[in-house]
């Protein structure tokens, strides 16, 4: 599979939630429009609870929109499928399979690995390539619980990519990792993004991570979530490997711009309310 143009058009999403024993409808996403070119790496940032995960789950087909449509290369999304790989914040490797069996799972569903045709050797070849790329050579025979958090996320990424999805959806994949491991993962993943031409939608609350890994950064506003602004990382200085140089005034300035948008779009009124309520309970 190649291409991977994602078209998100007029997406509305709300959840029915219980508030003081009453069912209320809470709008989460409102009129989201995004058009993503094949191969583009889009980072989505925004305040906590603004609907980033919900947006990703909609593209994955794990949630249904109230209105609007999402299509991949013109095909409307109506359910999950192997053309969109997903990596969540928490590892979803199956504990009952070895890392290798996890990685090759989606291929095993479609082709019998015992047969001797070309498809099989291609599947095994690609799985092996991803194992090497993710530095998992020595972990393939282990069970997921025997891996560190960072290694688990590498395996999750390899597993999501093995069937060559058009789009890779990542929801804070490094959110649960320590700063050092995350740094390593950034290197691994920016290399990956250079070799894999798949389209990426990547949710993070770490603005630096977004700048380092993304072509574009979408800021979602909160309550309800809307596209507030879009930044491109084109103009940032890069080293010879194409990696953004962080130690640079342009970088700081860029980061500050994005942060200020996030701050501004976080409903201050809501925060004020909360503070008041907290103050009351403390008195």
């Amino acid at each position, binding site marked *: 599979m190649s291409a991977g143009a994602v078209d998100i058009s007029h997406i509305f999403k709300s959840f029915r939630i219980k508030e003081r024993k009453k069912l209320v409808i809470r709008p989460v996403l409102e009129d989201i429009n995004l058009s993503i070119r094949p191969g583009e790496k889009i980072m989505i940032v925004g305040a906590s609870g603004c609907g980033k995960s919900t947006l990703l789950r909609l593209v*994955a*087909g*794990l949630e249904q929109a109230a209105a609007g449509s999402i299509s991949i290369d013109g095909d409307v999304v109506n*359910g*999950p*499928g*192997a053309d*969109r*790989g*997903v990596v*969540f914040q*928490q590892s*979803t490797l*199956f*504990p*009952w*399979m070895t890392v290798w069996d996890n990685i090759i*799972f*989606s291929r095993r*569903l*479609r082709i019998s690995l015992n047969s001797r045709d070309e498809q099989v050797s291609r599947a095994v070849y690609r799985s092996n390539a991803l194992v090497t790329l993710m530095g998992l050579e020595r972990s393939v025979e282990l*069970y997921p*619980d*025997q891996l560190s958090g960072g290694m688990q996320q590498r395996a999750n990424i390899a*597993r*999501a990519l093995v*069937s060559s999805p058009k789009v890779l959806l990542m929801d804070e994949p490094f959110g649960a990792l320590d700063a050092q491991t995350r740094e390593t993962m950034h290197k691994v993943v920016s290399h990956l993004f250079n070799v894999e031409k798949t389209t990426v939608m990547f949710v993070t609350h770490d603005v630096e991570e977004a700048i380092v890994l993304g072509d574009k950064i979408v800021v979602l506003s909160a309550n309800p979530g809307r596209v507030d602004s879009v930044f491109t990382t084109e103009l940032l200085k890069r080293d010879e490997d194409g990696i953004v140089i962080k130690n640079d005034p342009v970088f700081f300035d860029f980061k500050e711009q994005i942060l200020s948008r996030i701050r501004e779009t976080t409903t201050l009124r809501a925060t004020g309310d909360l503070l008041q309520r907290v103050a009351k309970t403390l008195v």
Partner: protein
Amino acid sequence: MIALTNIRDSIPRWVYISFSIAGFIIPLAVWQIICSMHIFSALFLPSPERVFKSFERWTASNLWEDTYISAYRVVSGFLLAAVIGVPIGIYIGTFKMVEAMLQPINDFIRYMPASAFIPLVLLWIGIGESAKISIIFIGVFFQIVVMVADAVRNIPQKYIEAAYTMGAKKGEVLNHVIFKGAAPDIFNILRVNMGWAWTYLVIAEMVAADRGLGFAILQAQRFMDTPKIFVGIIIIGILGLLFDLSFRIMHRIFFVWSYK
């Protein structure tokens, strides 16, 4: 000094085994001491020695035959319940429609005592082997169903979603995620129910039996043969323990991944 009383801490294997053995030896010793004090009449509490004599006598007659037929009944009733109950439990835990239809009625019957079904079983199935097997079946089937349904519901949603995003179809999710993921729990449920199946033996052999451990216990009761009652109970206990142990060993072999 080894710390033996830290919460959930493991202890050396030899210590563990010593304590397990002590757990059997101590009650035995207490039993022996009480008997040698002659507080109770031997009719109520026979001494270990007399129980052993009774065991020897029974071995010389038909203990093995009784054991064999009882084991046959227990295992058959249990297997039948497992083969039918596990799939039903999986479907109840997976599909709300099946849950709505089968769970309430299953819970309803589950609380009825198996012994109350004896007259019905006699009426419907007669007095052959199948009658005894049916009582054991009734005793464990409904438990297996609820417990398996619960085990299946405990599979985290994230694994199911992950499988769908990798292109798995409904049947494949059921097979590779729900069943595989719940398998260790299901196996443990079967182990526990195998134990319960043994506890229904005496009830099952109230149904027109002329052989079996449960039957022998009932017979001994009629003749006030207390030592033989003890032997029967102890043998059922030992058999239950052996089955339990083999289930545990198999669990360790089949589900290596579930041990960290």
